[in-house]
């Protein structure tokens, strides 16, 4: 089953012919590199094999990919992008300049390499990366894990910065050099945005009142097979690294904490095992196809599990910031996230759900 995960035909094949080193460092952060080229000056090459293990090659050497390895050429930056921290406030943003971390000799896994292996389909462009970073930031702010309230004081800003820096490092493996609030009024014109929304609503809404509410759900482009494969690949590759990092992030102070920590790791291990042995999306039993709506349900659970994984990385960043500080809240969060992972992966395995409404 796992083999099929990595031979997945649904992943976009890397466009070998499109390697353009001039894009690197400006519009693109990483590009798939054809074998045999010499790595241009400030870049480094990241080679990822089918099992997600990665290695780096320094600038100047030739890319000699082994059997089954995919190579990327990564420019360290620095890059600048604008993030909108609140979807409801498009005219105020953060101008972030960041760089891809050089290989950290203390770490066994480079986080950015893991990001390439598990999330980058082919090329990583700056705009796409910015969108991912913005989603991560918006979720942390919405959950109240980072705070950027109206009239932020300097002290609050510094707290936010340290949390944000750690989030970007832990989640994406990039270091934030600078981050300043900016007025995005010129590029994100809110009146124009609302105009566009109004125009979209001009489609008669009045008729919707009589229609069943379920029909009003937006039809989003959701291809179950692609979403499922992407989410499971992420879980399969990232959970072991996450567990490793969680093990190191907390030094249990006493017996009680040790037990708690150990229990958490044990449960994560079981989730990881469950992901590794996940049944194929389209089969209810060997040789017995599963109904399309059940496949859709399964894919939704995979995606929600991947969302819980994102939360877990953000929580790891908070653990690192907290250091020796109070960990009770963080362990409760960890319990919640692991419970979500267990629920979603469990629901992904079953072939149908029996719904009961009443208590």
């Amino acid at each position: 089953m796992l083999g099929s995960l990595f031979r997945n035909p649904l992943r976009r094949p890397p466009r070998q012919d499109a390697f353009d080193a001039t894009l690197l460092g400006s519009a693109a952060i990483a590009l798939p590199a054809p074998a045999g080229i010499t790595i241009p000056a400030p870049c480094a090459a990241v080679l990822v094999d089918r099992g997600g293990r990665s290695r780096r090659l320094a600038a100047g050497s030739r890319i000699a990919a082994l059997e089954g390895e995919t190579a990327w050429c990564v420019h360290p930056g620095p890059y600048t992008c604008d993030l909108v921290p609140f979807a409801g406030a498009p005219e105020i943003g953060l101008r972030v300049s960041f760089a891809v971390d050089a290989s950290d000799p203390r770490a066994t896994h480079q986080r950015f390499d893991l990001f390439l292996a598990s999330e980058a389909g082919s090329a990583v462009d700056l705009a796409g990366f910015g969108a991912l970073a913005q989603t991560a930031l918006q979720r942390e702010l919405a959950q109240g894990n980072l705070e950027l309230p109206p009239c932020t004081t300097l002290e609050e800003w510094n707290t936010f910065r340290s949390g944000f820096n750690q989030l970007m490092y832990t989640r994406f493996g990039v270091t934030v050099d600078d981050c300043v609030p900016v007025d995005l009024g010129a590029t994100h014109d809110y009146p124009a945005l609302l105009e566009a929304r109004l125009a979209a609503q001009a489609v008669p809404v009045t008729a919707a009142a009589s229609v069943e509410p379920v029909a009003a759900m937006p039809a989003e482009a959701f291809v179950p097979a692609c979403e499922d494969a992407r989410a499971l690949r992420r879980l399969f590759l990232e959970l072991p690294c996450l567990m490793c990092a969680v093990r190191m992030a907390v030094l249990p102070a006493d017996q009680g904490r040790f037990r708690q920590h150990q229990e958490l790791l044990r449960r994560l291990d079981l989730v990881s095992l469950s992901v590794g042995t996940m049944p194929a999306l389209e089969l209810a039993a060997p040789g017995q196809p599963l109904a399309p709506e059940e496949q859709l349900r399964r894919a939704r659970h995979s995606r929600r599990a991947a969302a819980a994984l994102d939360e877990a990385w953000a929580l790891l960043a908070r653990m690192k910031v907290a250091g020796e500080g109070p960990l009770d809240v963080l362990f409760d969060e960890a319990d919640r996230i692991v419970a979500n992972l267990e629920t979603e992966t469990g629901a992904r395995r079953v072939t149908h759900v029996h719904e009961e409404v009443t208590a």
Partner: protein
Amino acid sequence: MTAPVFEASCRSILPDGSMMTITATRRPRAGRADVKCSVPGAPAQAERMQQVVRLARHTEPRYDSRDQVVLSADRAFDPAARDWELAAVLADRIVRGVLQAARPMVANGWSDAWHLGRIDGRALVNVPDGVLAGGPDGIPHLGALTGQPDPGAATASARAWFPLHSGGDHDDLGWVEVSVRPLASAMDTDDDAISLPDLDALRQGQVRAVLAGARHFDGRGQGQWKTTVRFGETGFSGDSYGLALVMADRIARGREFMTRGRVIATGTSSAWHAGKVETVDALAPKCALILREAGPGDRILLPKAWESALPQGMREALRARGASIACVERIGII
């Protein structure tokens, strides 16, 4: 954080005028469904309730699969009545601590788009005092309970709260709501761009001056918006609502950072065009009122001059409750 709640209830007024209660209880999930509902003698209604609650949960940023919430209505109701939907959603939120209710709630409202958090309307015609009324003229979406703008609507509106009088035991927090929509799309452009229903002429002049000054400071927002300002309670005194008004305006126009809870502000200025915030009277009673009312995620903004004179332990008490406080000299980014 706050102490966990295991039972909560929210009431709703049925079409015949009687009151129904929806009680929510929370218990460990233990492999069961996330939401269960029961309505005496009406399984179809229970199914609808489960659907409503599940859809409304899509608007929450935090998902917790550890608990099961059981919702039960205390009486059967007419299948055509849908005003209980808001009460069910609120009961579900209160029992999980997503929403803090200071006092028992009565709520009426229905929606065809709970997954967007929108509340489309209500059947109740004469809304008694203290009843949360869903719909465009009351609470148009779930975020409005804490003053947040609706991320999907074409009209951006935000609320901020301020002490109505000078604090004290009988005082309360009142809200000011600023709604803006793009001027170009407004049909009657010759109409005044800032409309203030139910305010007297003197107050109207004040509000217009404050908004004009604050938008001048901003550099944007002049001649772009058609604005409506509403107050929850028009019988307030003084001009210390100024800071709350300015904050609501900035949040509505998408130019201010946001908080998860409410913005509670008191402060005035003679120079909003320079972004300055000046001090107001009644420090002690207002602080006592704010301390009484503040909840998790709330943001409290006070004038800079109050910083050294804040009551002992106020900051700590607020932080313990999950609220944050700042004494500001100027509005705008740091």
